[in-house]
């Protein structure tokens, strides 16, 4: 329906074929339409091309309400398990839309890469002077900025390219994306994690009992990340106005960074422990590696950052700074090729969902 005829001709992958089978069953049932955005989006369609399925899979927040409520869930012969199949399909879209492809392939499913990158990053950074007593004695400001500017340029391009590839793949044009109402709607969905609230009782994660735990820990992680980002941005502004790090404990960058850092300690630990007790029937175990890597990198970014803050007046400052920067560098490098991209594609899917809802009501 919504997809262009040309997209229909794309052969479905085996995972997408299974997702299509489920959507045909779900579309004849529709009992779950009150749970989240996925099922009303499904009801806007009669046929499911690869583009539709990629979109629906990324709209799914994996709350699993629909699994526990499903009269056709295994052991029923229809074996409907939407959250698991959509998780598998999401992994395929992450792979398909990641850019540049060869670089993405380097990271895929190879957890060994992370310590390897940390080591390399530490090596690069250690050409600096670990015995320095001030930040920029350890590593000159220009070196730090040029390394991180280069990496940031890479990851921003990778994310923009990934987003555009996903957006076009879902049958939309870039100009359609720039719709303030739809973007505002999607932003509200993201900032509130509405699709994990299930009308206020919380989603069925990690098991069939309703709980807000995942939403709360996701908020800690998400807002922690944003606060750290804000801290870095303010610090950069300070730097260019002549105020050089380190800043006092009551300064804006340190307060923002500390609050964000606390969020990034609590959030990832919470999400990891929930993940450990997740109902195995709903999990795509193939993605555990990249999920846990991402949570681990967030945690250690914050942990080494807070350690550095606490010990910046001591002799271990130099080595700590190098380790911290290495972990941050590793986090940045893996962002476009790991779990972080779920945020890009989920947000894009939410914008598309808002657009579709508006188009339905002329």
């Amino acid at each position, binding site marked *: 329906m919504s997809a262009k005829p040309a997209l229909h001709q794309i052969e479905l992958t085996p995972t997408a074929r299974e997702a299509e089978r489920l959507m045909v*069953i779900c579309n*004849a049932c*529709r009992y779950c339409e009150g*749970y989240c955005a996925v099922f009303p989006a499904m009801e806007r369609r*009669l046929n499911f091309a690869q583009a539709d399925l990629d979109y629906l899979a990324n709209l799914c927040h994996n709350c699993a309400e629909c699994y526990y*409520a499903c*009269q056709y869930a295994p052991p029923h012969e*229809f074996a409907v398990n939407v959250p698991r199949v959509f998780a598998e399909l999401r992994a395929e879209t992450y792979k398909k839309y990641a850019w540049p492809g060869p670089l993405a392939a380097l990271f895929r499913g190879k957890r060994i890469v992370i310590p390897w990158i940390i080591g390399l990053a530490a090596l690069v950074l250690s050409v600096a002077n670990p015995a320095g007593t001030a930040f920029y004695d350890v590593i000159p400001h220009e070196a730090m900025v040029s390394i991180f500017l280069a990496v940031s340029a890479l990851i921003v391009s990778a994310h923009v390219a990934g987003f555009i590839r996903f957006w076009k793949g879902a049958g939309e044009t870039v100009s359609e994306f720039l719709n303030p109402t739809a973007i505002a709607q999607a932003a509200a969905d993201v900032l509130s994690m509405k699709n994990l609230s299930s009308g206020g009782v919380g989603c069925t994660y990690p098991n069939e*009992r309703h709980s807000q735990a995942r939403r709360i820990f996701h908020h800690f992680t998400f807002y922690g990340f944003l606060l750290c980002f804000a801290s870095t941005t303010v610090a950069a502004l300070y730097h260019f106005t002549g105020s050089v790090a380190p800043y006092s404990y009551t300064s804006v960058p340190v307060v923002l960074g500390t609050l964000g850092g606390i969020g990034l300690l609590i959030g990832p630990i919470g999400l990891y422990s929930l993940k450990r007790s997740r109902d195995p029937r709903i999990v795509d175990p193939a993605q555990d590696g990249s999920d846990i890597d991402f949570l681990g990198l967030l945690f250690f970014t914050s942990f080494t950052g807070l350690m550095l803050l606490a010990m910046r007046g001591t002799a271990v400052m130099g080595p700590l700074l190098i380790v911290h920067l290495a972990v941050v560098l590793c986090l940045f490098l893996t962002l476009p090729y790991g779990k972080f991209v779920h945020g890009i594609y989920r947000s894009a899917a939410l914008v598309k969902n808002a657009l579709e809802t508006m188009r339905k009501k002329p």
Partner: protein
Amino acid sequence: MDSDILTSDIAVIGGGNAALCAALAAREAGATVTVFECAPFDYRGGNSRHTRNMRCMHEAPTDVLTGAYTEDEFFADILRVTEGNTNEHLARMVIRESPNSVAWAKKQGVRFQPSLGGTLHLGRTNAFFLGGGKALMNTYYERAAAYGVNVLYNAEVTALDIRDGRFLGGMLQHEGKPREFRAKALVVASGGFEANFEWLEEAWGEAARNFIVRGTPYNRGTVLKMLLTAGADSIGDPTQGHCVAIDGRAPKFDGGIVTRLDCVPLGIVVNKNAVRFYDEGEELWPKRYAIWGRLVAQQPEQIAYSVIDSKVLGRFMPSVFPPIKADTIEQLANALELSAATLRDTVDSFNQAVVPGTFNHQVLDDCHTSGDLKPPKTHWAQKIDTPPFMGYPLRPGLTFTYLGVRVNDKAQVQFGGAFSGNIFAAGEIMAGNILGKGYPAGTGMTIGAVFGRIAGKGAANVR
């Protein structure tokens, strides 16, 4: 060994809506309760796991219901579909209690949703469970666990000791082992016998073999039979059941909602001999879909085929099985294993009889066939002329049976004209008291919810 005897104040047989409402109400009243659910955990909840809503009276719009639906209108609907085959006192009691049942369900944690799509336009009369009946049952079971109700799965009652209408004890198979159980009072909420093909054959003859059971395979009527054998007074015609036309490719059991086909009024329906047999456009589909099961059951080999053309695609809920498609009527006939010449004749004579009109599938439109076509199609008659042509096989899909035990307004089961002091019934096993024939959608769940609570409270008062 006495220690092996399962003892509680109340034994509830069954695991669906009525059973859990009874168990929770009895527990709220302070009684200890054991629930015997014969299905395993994954299939708990009887036919309630396939339901979606309950019909509810209301004087003004509520958070989940639009408009108003008064006691008299609700009763008029029951009177109409049952053709008077009801007990007005019990029916009105259920209707009046229905808003309380919704409120009570909410108190247990059940969530309702405003009605959206795909629901036969029931947003005014029926309160929809968020996520459907299995979500409803999950909530009740979660609440039962929190209240300390003892729930046994794979627990099939094999014998009941009933003397002079009084329950004394019983036997069950639990996880394959025999056990004895005792209780001061018994609530029977174990459904009908629609999954018992031997019993169905007694009532419907050999035609029953070709029926498909839309719901649980665990409603075999064994406890119903025990009660009748022990002298309980029966109510309802054993040959009556709720039987709709569903996709003939559905699984034998548990296919549920997705096997429903809503395209009958949009085309023609032919039998094995490729001829039409009933007015497909007699009434709006929600008012007629429940007669088509019986109509198909009366056709040779209990099969029929809905034939539509491409014009009507998108005008009905997609079904779970794809239509059988062909570019010509003859090819479609071959694909459906019908006589190509006869189907051609049937379609041609239908097309010739179509009187042009303004098609509107949401109202009783003026598209009908001219006088000489037998049977006529009185609404939504459009020529079947736009390929590809599509066919869906139809089979009788049995939802539930009406034969049950007679009860009073305290849910007490009647034995030889006298009401039992400690045997109560709720749900499908006694729904025939109110629904002697036909049912307005969602009324079974209302009866289960209201009588379940009455039975549970009554049982808790037995000394």
